[in-house]
């Protein structure tokens, strides 16, 4: 006699067995795919970081491959008291950068900020991860905004965010301030706080680490 499982479809054991089996199969496939792509995803994340480090130090590159080569040859990294500090290897002009991370409006803002050897001027800023409101806080990724940081003089060890016009932003490189983003007060305020702390962390750690 052939056993027809479907006749037991409303039986509790069938219900439980079916749910367990289906869940098992789907989750198995997912974990398999996840395992297969894990390396690639990790590599992509590394690459985001590497591109951000180079961008913050104003080191130009043509493509991802070149970015990787430059990074491996010219940039050193050291972890001091739980923070990653990046620096250019000699004989280049010494530049330092730090991976910062803090709460934005919606989620974490993570990025890199770079300074020159004397801690006198910023070299630039780049973001690794942010989920601010597109078109408002999300504009921190726009070139006019990031461009304001290049060569900006540090006053009291940080940069201030002021109310201002959008594009082209604050072009005065000696006033120690940049224009915040109109309509994105929370993002601007958070970023200002995050950067203030990051720059302090960087300076302390460069001294401590003897870099």
């Amino acid at each position, binding site marked *: 006699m052939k056993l027809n499982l479907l006749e037991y479809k409303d039986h509790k054991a069938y219900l439980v067995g079916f749910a367990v089996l289906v869940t098992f199969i789907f989750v198995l496939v997912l974990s398999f795919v996840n395992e297969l792509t894990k390396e690639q995803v990790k590599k*992509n994340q590394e690459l985001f970081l590497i591109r951000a480090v180079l961008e913050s130090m104003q080191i130009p590159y043509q493509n991802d491959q070149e970015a990787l080569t430059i990074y491996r040859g010219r940039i050193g990294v050291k972890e001091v008291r739980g923070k990653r500090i990046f620096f250019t290897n000699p004989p280049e002009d010494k530049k330092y950068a730090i991976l910062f991370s803090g709460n934005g409006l919606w989620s974490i803002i993570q990025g890199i900020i770079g300074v020159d050897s004397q801690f006198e001027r910023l070299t630039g800023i780049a973001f690794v991860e942010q989920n601010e409101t597109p078109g408002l806080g999300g504009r921190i990724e726009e070139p006019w905004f990031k461009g304001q940081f290049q060569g900006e003089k540090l006053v009291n060890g940080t940069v201030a965010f002021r109310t201002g016009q959008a594009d082209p932003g604050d072009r005065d490189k000696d006033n120690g301030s940049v224009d915040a983003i109109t309509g994105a007060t929370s993002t601007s305020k958070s970023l200002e706080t995050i950067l203030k702390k990051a720059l302090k962390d960087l300076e302390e750690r460069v001294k401590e680490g003897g870099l």
Partner: protein
Amino acid sequence: MSLNAATNTTRILKDNLFRNNPVASQIIGICSALAVTNNLINTFIMGVGVALSTAFSSFTLSLMKAWIPQKVRMIIQVLVLSFYVILLDILLRAFIPDIAKALGPYIGLIITNCILMGRAEAFAQANPPGAAFWDGLTSGIGYLMVLMIVAFFRELLGFGTLFGVPVLPDQFIPWTIMVMAPSAFFVLAIYIWIHNTLLAKKRK
């Protein structure tokens, strides 16, 4: 393909794009329609993502339908559609990381998109796999179509660009409201108004 099947295929397509469009007629999937439509590129990827996940989850559920006990029907549906959405998320993160980064949490949120569940309940559980696939795909395209129209106006007026390329003169002052979610309500509402007025006219 028999004549009957062919007319059926066209009918499903027309239904899902116009008469029964998920966003404009059934008013479902609105949440993401508000969230991602201020930029055409993101909208496009999102729409394709929804179309593919709806198509494949409907297909799979239709294949499984004889074995699914009624009591756990919806749990199984959610399981299958989460499976495809997570798969999509993993693949995007591995192969087009820049887009994955831009879409952020919205890809994962496709799971909660009512269109997927709606098609699974309304169509896939009573129709053969091929038809279910087609129904899911066309529903997703119907969603994509409406979102692209909304995104067209929002990106044009909010940024002065289309697909990231500036198209309006420099003197144009972007409408900040268009970038924010509330504007999608206005644009979408106007679209639904026109869509339904035209449909009503046609019916007469």
